[in-house]
């Protein structure tokens, strides 16, 4: 395969051979937790050979087909692909030639100057021009135009100096670009400019523009990664700049888009767990050998126990009680876990959900009455349930005590209790006896904590105290959550 001119739609000329680059990319994908075997790598190299490097979009799809094994890995793949098979080198053709978008053509940003001063434009002018261009692009809804604006914006606003002499090379920051450009401020204008269709369809405009703005943010990120990779090396960028797969994102630090994606994962996850649980139940049905009956049976075969008899297990689906901290800091996590349990509802004969901030109230009704949007769910709970009568911050001690006094009878010998929360008690009384009562009444009880285990006990965290009463598990990601639920849920 011969190297090609850096055309707009072609992959940048390669330093190493394409195969070497595929291998390096596989290495990066593995670094992000994707399982890519040798046979997949071979397939990918063959795909590259068959498709050629001339058309980047084709190559992307081809490599994806060969390297990916399941849905949901695609975003990580796309980010890594953009780093290893970048669109051209340096500022893009569109940025270099265009005079109206960003006007940053003759200004090379690699002098390390944070705000490259050029032909008398103030940064405000650049920002204003870029915003106008963005409004236009959003109004037309054209991906190409948005991409051009993203390239110009990163070029004009995103340059960051390297760190110190002999340190890292200068790079480009998507965050800085977006902070200066503030694309969300263009939504209203773009919506007005769009106002294409009259009637109720116009209402869809706002939402569509919003989604396009999200897409624009992603484009800026891609462009910044690409430009930074040139200076700082691909491996580095692939390692640090690629957003992790939704399964590995931490609940407490997830942004809106990531939460949305995590929500989409819940349905298949719930089904997977349900299959696993029912399989476990099937196995568990076969109890231990009933010696007496086995011996009795063996009489018919002359004392040889040909057919062992098993004890019958008492079949009862377990009951589940969830106790969720829905205070602001962990609401996302709690909402998420409730969603999962809601999806798993068939697996239990009874699920009751209680929410608390500093007082516990039953919210089973609110959760079962439709509506699966965790954000709305949290809001509904705060609005309808009496969970925070005293102040807006968590008080586990008081919450447990109020649970024991009002709902202790809910927990019986068949009940498993899951407590969800970060155990940050704002230095209040942890209320260990109340939790002890709950744990003593329940068949099993455990605590899922969305904080990293190394932070338990720091500051106002009462996690170690609680961990002595009920077993506590770190549960920061979907991956961990599904593992824990699969392992801990009663059969």
């Amino acid at each position, binding site marked *: 395969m011969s190297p090609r001119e850096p055309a707009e739609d072609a992959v940048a000329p390669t330093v190493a051979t394409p195969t070497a680059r595929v291998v390096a990319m596989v290495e990066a994908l593995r670094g992000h937790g994707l*399982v890519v*075997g040798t*046979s*997949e790598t071979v*397939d990918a190299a*063959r*795909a590259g050979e*068959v*498709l050629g490097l001339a*058309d980047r*979009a*084709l190559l992307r*799809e*081809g490599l*994806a*087909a*060969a390297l*990916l*094994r*399941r*849905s949901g890995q*695609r975003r990580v793949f796309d980010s890594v692909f953009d780093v290893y098979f970048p669109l051209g080198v340096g500022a893009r053709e569109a940025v270099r030639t265009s005079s109206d978008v960003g006007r940053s053509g003759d200004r090379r940003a690699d002098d390390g100057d944070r705000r490259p001063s050029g032909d008398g434009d103030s940064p405000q002018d650049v920002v204003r021009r870029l915003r106008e261009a963005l409004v236009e692009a959003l109004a037309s809804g054209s991906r190409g135009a948005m991409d051009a604006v993203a390239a110009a914006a990163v070029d004009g606003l995103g340059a960051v100096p390297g760190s110190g002499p002999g340190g890292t090379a200068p790079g480009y920051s998507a965050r800085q670009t977006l902070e200066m450009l503030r694309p969300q401020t263009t939504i209203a204008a773009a919506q007005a400019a769009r106002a294409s*269709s009259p*009637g*109720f*369809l116009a*209402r*869809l405009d706002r*939402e*569509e523009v919003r*989604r396009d703005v999200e897409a624009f943010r992603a484009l800026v990120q891609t462009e910044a990664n690409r430009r930074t990779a040139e200076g700082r090396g691909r491996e580095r960028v692939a390692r640090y700049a690629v957003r992790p797969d939704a399964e590995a994102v931490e609940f407490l630090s997830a942004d809106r888009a990531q939460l949305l994606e995590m*929500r989409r994962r819940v349905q*298949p996850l719930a*089904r*997977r767990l349900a*299959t696993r649980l029912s399989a476990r139940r099937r196995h568990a049905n076969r109890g231990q050998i009933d010696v007496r009956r086995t011996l009795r049976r063996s009489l018919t075969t002359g004392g040889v126990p040909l057919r062992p008899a098993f004890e019958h297990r008492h079949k009862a689906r377990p009951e589940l009680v969830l106790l969720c901290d829905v205070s602001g800091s962990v609401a996302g996590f709690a909402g998420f876990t409730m969603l999962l349990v809601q999806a798993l509802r068939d697996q239990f004969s009874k699920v009751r959900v209680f929410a608390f901030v500093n007082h516990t109230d039953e919210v089973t009704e609110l959760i079962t009455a*439709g*509506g*699966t*949007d965790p954000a*709305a769910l949290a809001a509904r709970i705060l609005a309808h349930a009496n969970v925070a009568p005293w102040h807006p911050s968590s008080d586990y001690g008081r919450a447990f005590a109020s649970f024991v006094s009002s709902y202790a009878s809910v927990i019986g010998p068949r009940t498993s209790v899951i407590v969800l929360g970060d155990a940050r008690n704002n230095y209040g009384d942890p209320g260990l006896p109340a939790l002890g009562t709950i744990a003593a009444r329940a068949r099993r009880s455990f605590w899922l904590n969305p904080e990293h285990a190394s932070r338990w006990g720091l500051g106002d965290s009462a996690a170690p105290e609680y961990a002595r009463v009920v077993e506590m598990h770190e549960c920061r990601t979907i991956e961990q959550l599904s593992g824990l639920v699969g392992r801990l849920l009663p059969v």
Partner: protein
Amino acid sequence: MSERFSSVDDVTARLSEVGYLASPSVATTVYLADRLDKPLLVEGPAGVGKTELARAVAAVTRTELVRLQCYEGVDEARALYEWNHAKQLLRITAGRGETWDETRDDIFTDEFLLARPLLRAIRSDAPTTLLIDEVDKADQEIEGLLLEVLSDYAITVPELGTLEAHHPPFTVLTSNATRELSEALRRRCLFLHIDFPEPDLEERIVRTRVPGLDEEAARSLVRVVNALRRIDLRKAPAVSESIDWARTLLALGADTLDEHVVEETLGVLLKHTDDVARARTHLELSGAERS
């Protein structure tokens, strides 16, 4: 190795001749599956055209479509082959007087073999397209059977030996991901995730399938469908439902989408009453307040 397609563009063009508008990712993956001679595992939400893709490939390559519909409990006898016991018994009865050895050699031959989809695709004299539909519905054991078929295009019948394919079939497996497929199976396949199409593509699909529909109406329809897919529904509207909706609108003689028409016909698009209610709220139909 037969080469069914000459380029990615060729895939796109020929599939569109039979009415399947392929996105670039679909076209590329189909082309690769042909070139690398690997089966294609297609995942994605219901109603985005996974099964349709296999049909379209069969149509453009002018090959027979052999379909194995998987379900819970599908077994070797349903998927691979079984012996025609009745006919074997007849043969034994007819051949009175011959020795057992003669009979035995005779009743385990091709004549008494009932080929089920996988064997039929492997042994076919003409090239075929093999569709293994909803493989996630089948039990895990069946995946073991598939491994041999998918990697070597061969089936081992103990009495007859290993039967190899005359023409490796173009193989498409579909899955709705209700169950995790085994790594071994996944590794044998190229992977394609078909999602709901981009609005432009969906608009073209709708207009291809429902030619009478006005361009403006098609665009609005796709916008509404996309807006609905983004809210939380029990069953998001699929492409097939967009097409149904377009047909309905055409039948009603509605040239433009207005609030009233949408309100009346939402039931074509959505399959649950609470979904319909939610959609009403979301689209602010009939004065429903935005929640």
